């Protein structure tokens, strides 16, 4: 999909907006983007399985996922001659892939070789080339600045993530317990006024306002549905609310999902990693469904700070590695493909004889996605990702 199609699609598919939608709708012509950050370094090799590689099966005697096999429900789902999907993702991501709404970018990641969760996560969220620490802002905050109001930003997290820091007042809202009402208008005004002239003024007033609005919106909806309080557990449980807010009000979102640091008993077709992937897959599917027609104007990128060791360790788990597999999803993405630079999966091609190499830098890939979504020029790309040239993988 190119930018022109985005515009046409959007015009053709104006959603029926509810009360809140009328008040808060973003400009109809603008696409939307959700960044899903898997914190902990998910084991990509047990999500996108290089099933044509004997080396994969040698390296993972206990946790490998079986080759595609019509007689084995625990066998992987073949996507092409080399790659297959974890069986637990078959109903969710498998269907989206068949509908050409998901692409995977293997051998993806950053230059950062610290193998430290925290350094690499920070590095990704800052969006800077190695050794550059000049910015005190995250790449999504800078993107929001470049888009100049075309894409209202929000983080669906308890705290504002580094990705969105340094961009002035950007809203954050955890989707746990949003149904409770908070302060009335008079109290909200009094609380906001106390912070007039302090550095927390923007956060205080926008936070109070957003809480009140969202409580009102979901409160009414919950009464209608007669479901009681929202008690969203995990990503799958929150993704419908997340989609509604992204559909009606926001165009640039961030959410993170934890629990991927599988050093011990990672599992294969079933187990720890499979459970997490299942939750993530279901959440993304719900997100797509809830967006309805607007899914066509939406791009979701899922990535993690690094991949894990290609070989399993002594505890039927995997340790911190390097290259990962990134996901690009959306109603109009050029999906149903495995894209980007690739090499055969064998011992010789591993980095330091332990990890996937990184052949597709996430900054270049994301710059390519953003350029096509919003028609950014090179100067704007450089503002978002300094010293980076967009690489157009024709994903949108």
């Amino acid at each position, binding site marked *: 999909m190119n930018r022109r199609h985005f515009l046409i699609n959007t015009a053709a598919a104006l959603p029926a907006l509810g009360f809140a939608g009328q008040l808060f709708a973003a400009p109809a012509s603008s696409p939307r983007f959700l960044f899903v950050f898997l914190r902990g370094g998910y084991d990509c090799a047990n999500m996108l399985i290089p099933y044509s590689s004997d080396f994969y099966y040698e390296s993972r005697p206990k946790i490998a996922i079986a080759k595609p096999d019509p007689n084995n429900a625990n066998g992987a789902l073949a996507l092409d001659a080399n790659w297959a999907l974890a069986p637990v993702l078959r109903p969710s991501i498998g269907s989206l892939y068949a509908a050409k709404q998901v692409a995977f970018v293997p051998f993806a990641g950053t230059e950062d070789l610290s193998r430290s969760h925290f350094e690499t996560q920070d590095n990704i969220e800052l969006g800077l080339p190695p050794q550059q620490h000049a910015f005190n802002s995250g790449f999504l905050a800078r993107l929001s600045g470049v888009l100049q109001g075309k894409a209202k930003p929000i983080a669906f*997290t308890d705290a504002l993530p580094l990705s969105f*820091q340094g961009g002035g*007042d950007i809203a*954050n809202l955890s989707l746990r317990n949003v149904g409770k009402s908070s302060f009335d208008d008079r109290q909200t005004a009094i609380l906001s*006024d*106390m912070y*007039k002239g302090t550095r927390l003024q923007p*956060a205080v007033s926008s936070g*109070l306002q957003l809480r009140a609005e969202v409580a009102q919106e979901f409160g009414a909806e919950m009464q209608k549905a007669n479901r009681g309080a929202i008690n969203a557990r995990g990503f799958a449980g929150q993704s419908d609310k997340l989609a509604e807010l992204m559909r009606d009000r926001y165009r640039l979102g961030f959410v993170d999902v934890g629990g991927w640091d599988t*050093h011990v008993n990672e599992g294969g077709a079933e187990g720890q990693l499979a459970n997490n992937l299942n939750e993530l897959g279901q959440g993304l599917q719900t997100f797509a469904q809830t967006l309805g027609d607007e899914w066509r104007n939406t791009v979701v990128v899922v990535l993690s700070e690094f991949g894990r060791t290609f070989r399993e360790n002594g505890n039927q788990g995997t340790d911190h590695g390097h290259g990962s597999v990134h996901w690009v999803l959306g109603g109009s993405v050029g999906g149903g493909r495995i894209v980007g630079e690739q090499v055969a999966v064998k011992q010789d091609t591993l980095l330091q004889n332990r990890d996937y190499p990184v052949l597709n830098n996430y900054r270049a890939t994301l710059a390519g996605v953003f350029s096509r979504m919003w028609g950014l020029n090179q100067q704007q790309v450089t503002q978002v990702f300094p010293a980076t040239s967009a690489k157009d993988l024709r994903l949108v």
Partner: protein
Amino acid sequence: MQTKLSFFFALTITGANAFAADAPAPMIGKDDLLWLNRITYGADEATIQQFRALGRKKFLDVQLRANDDHLPAPIQQRIDGMSIAHTDLQKTIEDFAKRRKEIKADGKTEMSAEQKKEYVREGADLVRQTINRELLRAVYSPDQLKEQMVWFWLNQFNVFARKGAEPWLVSDYAEHAIRPYAMGKFRDLVLATLTHPAMLVYLDNVRNAKDHANENYARELMELQTLGVDAGYTQKDVQELARILTGVSVEFVPRNVRLGRFSPEPLGKTGAAFFPARHDFGNKTLLGQTIRGDGFKEVEQAVDLLVKQPQCARFVSRRMAEYFVADQPPKELVDAMAHTFERSGGDIAETLRTMFESKAFDASLGNKFKDPMHFVVSALRYSYNGATQMDTDVAVNWLGTQGEVPFGHQSPDGYPLTESGWASSGQMSRRFEIARAIGAGRADKVDVNTKQAPPELAGSLFVKTMLPYMSQNSLAALEKAKSPVEWNTYLLSSPEFNYR
């Protein structure tokens, strides 16, 4: 209730400004109040009185000595009544292992749903007791600085309560691996955490064995606990430290058969043990130094080597300064602290003294945003002012919704120490809701027949301490309050209350 209301109306009707005009002389100067709000979790009447008697220098001495942790009798009784107060860790670990074994008697059967529920509930209860004990001490202990350091070290040597056996371990970890060393030598603290099952389970060192290396603990021990990420060590150093740490594990079930030189050697009384059979006895090179294969002695040598690094002095000093002084502490301050740290052999109290006696510390007063833990504890201290009819249990939930509950951080980096981690729009509005809950008396410990009542925050402590220093904006908000609860909410939500 009658007196509360009449006082409240007196305040609102006369108006805060008029009221300020007749106010008695402040009980404490503004700078001293701010100073006290840093050395302690937050001033209450008793600490202010003590400060007036001692002055800054002696008050600081007392806090650095940290030898008075007696609690009000009803609070101590509550802690003594907790089941975590009467458990022996070794026995707990054995019971835990036995139960798991019984449940998995045939090697296949998973726990029944009922067993699983009971097991999870029991674990959650132990964790909650532990958090409550820490919160009660934070609110009521006279050793206020030490209490902050206990939190600080629990954060720097983070463990996560929802992993494996952790619920049965965290209480002992806080009590015996962190608390006794919080103001002592950093080396002792590192070794105490290193030989505690809670850390060994959390960072997977129980799985780290010869030819089955698990690097998790080795990496975080250097990156997050001692040296910092930019300290110049390499992946090879991580691997070598992991080899040194092989065999440091937990003896879940003591063997009756001794295995000669392969017998596990207990490491203190915690259940942690050194398993020679799992140790890699080859020589190692860590940070350029050769460490000869020699069993657990290697670990002690490695810890000595780590804590002696100038990077360790700087890293630990910087972390403390971030916590107590500023998000970006001045370089000169960190240098001075690091110097003290090195000179004193990693003495925590001495390093703190250098920090508290610095100009940079004085210059920073009133500018450090309270993290949720400081906010909640200081609000409870201020609201109850030594009275003991307070229950911290509901505060556990508040810290949960603010994302800073003890033992609740999954990854080993611990909670952020900076304002940006806690002052986002979503967190501010939640914080005001907590202010309202405290202001409504939701932390009152009451029986079924008594109603929770708003604490009297507009009382004399306020008048004698905070009132003279409130901004016009905050006074205006207080004047608009329509009820005691609302008044309390605005006070606890005010910028003056939220910075220390």
